[in-house]
């Protein structure tokens, strides 16, 4: 099968890759670009482990084709920390142990960041509803919700 040349921006860096027409963005990120933070938990958009943003919009990268990245701006969990400094969400997750096995964590961090960009002061219920698209089997969500609320408070304080 012939491959398609794609030019895109990933975590602020201009990136080019070749991919097959039926290859998902998740496969491209993981297997071609070796950005393995995003995980495949279901392949059907039900678990959120593959969450990234595409032109600022939260998407399940298992449901996006690699060729759709043409000309787009993509951010992944690998782009959250800046210059070695963790994003406040990452820091709060670490401070509060809001993760265990770590597989859902990249997707949840990306999704939570997207939430806080839309709504800097979410209620507990708003955080729960927003993150209902991200499955976690380890934590029971308790510390995740608290970490997102705490990071939101920090970010509001810093703003």
């Amino acid at each position: 099968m012939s491959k398609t040349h794609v030019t895109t921006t990933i975590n602020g860096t201009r990136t080019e890759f070749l991919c097959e027409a039926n290859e998902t963005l998740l496969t491209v990120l993981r297997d071609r670009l070796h950005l393995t933070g995003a995980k495949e938990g279901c392949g059907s958009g039900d678990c959120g482990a593959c969450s990234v943003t595409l032109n600022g919009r939260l998407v399940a990268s298992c449901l996006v084709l690699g060729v759709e990245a043409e000309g787009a701006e993509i951010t992944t969990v690998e782009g959250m920390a800046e210059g070695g400094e963790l994003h406040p969400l990452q820091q709060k997750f670490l401070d509060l142990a809001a993760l265990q096995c770590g597989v859902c964590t990249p997707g949840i961090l990306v999704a939570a960041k997207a939430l806080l960009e839309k709504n800097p002061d979410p209620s507990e219920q708003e955080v729960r509803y927003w993150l209902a698209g991200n499955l976690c089997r380890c934590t029971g969500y308790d510390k995740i919700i608290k970490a997102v609320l705490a990071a939101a408070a920090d970010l509001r304080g810093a703003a």
Partner: protein
Amino acid sequence: MTDQGIGARVKRKEDKRFTTGHGKYTDDVRMENQAYAAFVRSPFAHAEIKGIDKSAAEAMEGVIAVLTGPELVADGIGNIICGWAVTSKDGSPMNMGAWSALATEKVRYVGDAAAVVIAESDAIARRAAEAVEVDYAELPAVAVASKALAAGAPQIHDNAPGNLIYDWEIGDEAATDAALAGAAHVTEMEITNNRLAPNPMEPRSAVATYDPIEEHYTLYTTSQNPHVARLVLSAFYQVAPENKLRVVAPDVGGGFGSKIYIYPEEITCLWASMKTGRSVKWTSDRSEAFMTDAHGRDHVTTAKLGFDADNRIVGFKVDTIANFGAYMSLFSSAVPTYLYATLLSGQYDIANIHCNVRAVYTNTVPVDAYRGAGRPEACYLVERMMETAARELGVEPTELRRANFIREFPHQTPVIMAYDAGDFEANLDQALAAADVAGFAARKAESAKRGVLRGLGFSSYIEACGIAPSAAVGSLGAGVGLWESAEVRVNAVGTIEVLTGSHSHGQGHETAFAQVVADRFDLPLDSISIVHGDTDTVQMGMGTYGSRSGAVGLSAIVKALDKVEAKVKKIAAHVLEASEDDIVIEGGQVKVAGTDKAMGWHEVGLSAYTAHNLPEGMEPGLKETAFYDPANFTFPAGTYICEVEVDPETGVTKIERFTCSDDFGTIINPMIVEGQVHGGVAQGIGQAMLEQVVYDDDGQLITGSYMDYTMPRADDVPFYDVHHASTTCPNNPLGIKGCGEAGAIGTPPAVINAITDAIGTNDLAMPATPQAVWSALQASGKSMAAE
């Protein structure tokens, strides 16, 4: 306690890599020259394989090989086995049917693999797998255990007549019958423990590489116990001798029991790597996970619980049918016997218990240990019967429990277990206070004003962890010892590596284990590293399951630390010209107590490795190994209280409060332990309200995706109120009991007891979906009760 030692809320060392997307899981491993495996899976629950036509698949571009069961058998790959021999009550051995990694003559469940395709890409492998033509002759199938036992049911394995694997009993049946006959009140129930899919968020994965020059295999895999994997791959499945097989379980994304077992796919990838000369990678998709990961639970039980006129329990009789699926998985036989029936005494002083268990083949995926493994089934039975009995007797559920609590330890139950320590009333009282049960009546009245039903449910659980004394489990049929190993290496600069046979797949061992070492030698946490998960690096170990890593794995580390400390003191006493008895280790120094004579911790390390000035006859180096074999199980216990609101018009149930009081013994890192409880409670809520594996009458899996199988999501669960009231375990050096499974064990009865309290009927099965709750309300005639 220091700010980083035992009891400190230390931030997890592993979380920087996990929060930045730099964890290294099996599917993240890429080998040079890597090919991909896709399995040809049976669409039938039961069928003969008449023939396999590979030609179309083999002709596809990018296909490297198509391999089948007869070829695997011809190469000497052995059958997958169950490692725990359970004997029927008539003395006969269990009837274990043959399980080949690739089916040979028959397939026995939907998803059973008949062939494998190895190809240049995952996509090609999957397309080619669809092109492999298997000529199946479909046979009648049975998915329900009680139906599989019925006369005329389809026969699944020739050597298990009537599909019966074993018919086992424990306890004194005659004495229990007599006690029940003389009881003032007998509560009878039929209880189903619903079948669950474990669903760790990381699907199983394997990357196998064969080196033909060295005749050596390397397997990266999603395992909770890489050494056990190597042992069975070598000793039973005949893949390679142990010294020619390295198994690495890198970061593993949750297990919950489902990654204990060595599955057909790992065996096949190793063999296929040898056959093709390529690294072979396979990663399960979620549908394959639902189809092939060992499921949990699936018991149907009838039980009678008898009380005397003072509401004291006089006897408990239990008859359980356990669905084992199509093959006996590695520890399957132990789950409904030694991990279930032995916990039927609960927290209560019961003189007479009898339990009969029939284990049954069905045309479903194998069933094995899933978080709790037998203990959730026991706890659900005991605690639902206690709550129901209290309602029948017209007494407060908590008072019925108090009247029957075991209060003196050690306590020998009539079902093997000897409880070593506990204070059940302390946990109950702590939970009652934290849950503000005193204020429940007012909250219920307030709910009623809104037309909503409010209910309160209790669960006072006990479980057994720290599996287990090797001689004891050996006498009960276990094929392995259940000790753990540790090696502590103090480097010449004083930093420490601890190699452990335990495996962390989310539990935070890299942090908690390091805290124990830091605490012992008063050293900075950053100077201590925990190494695990690689059979080339770590000596033989038994791995992580049954909440054993703290109670057993850490005990081995402590034993090795004892030896290190003894040697450090000998070296320091020699160098400082003092008595060993006067040497103390603190603040990074090794000192002579009461003097200013001291040497740095790192100087002791350096002395050990330069070996210029060691005591006469002492070996150089500072590295000690220990194997720890537990003296007993440990017995975590506690009380959980669930408070719910039910909308009688829709059956929609909301958990308003969930309160836990646990006795885990010594706690190393409360932040990690809370997380373990939270996750277990969420899985328990999932079992109670959401989750159910469904097979239809033909053995087709109906719940094969997240669209069909309801996982707990962030908006399904509350914040949890977690407390501890602990007694120290007397049987291991740190006094640890274990915390990994308690939530999943204690939660389901608390939830169902709360909902049944709200709706005023005991007749409610898990999962209590809105439809089930609404239907129960309609059936009870109490749907208009909310006022």
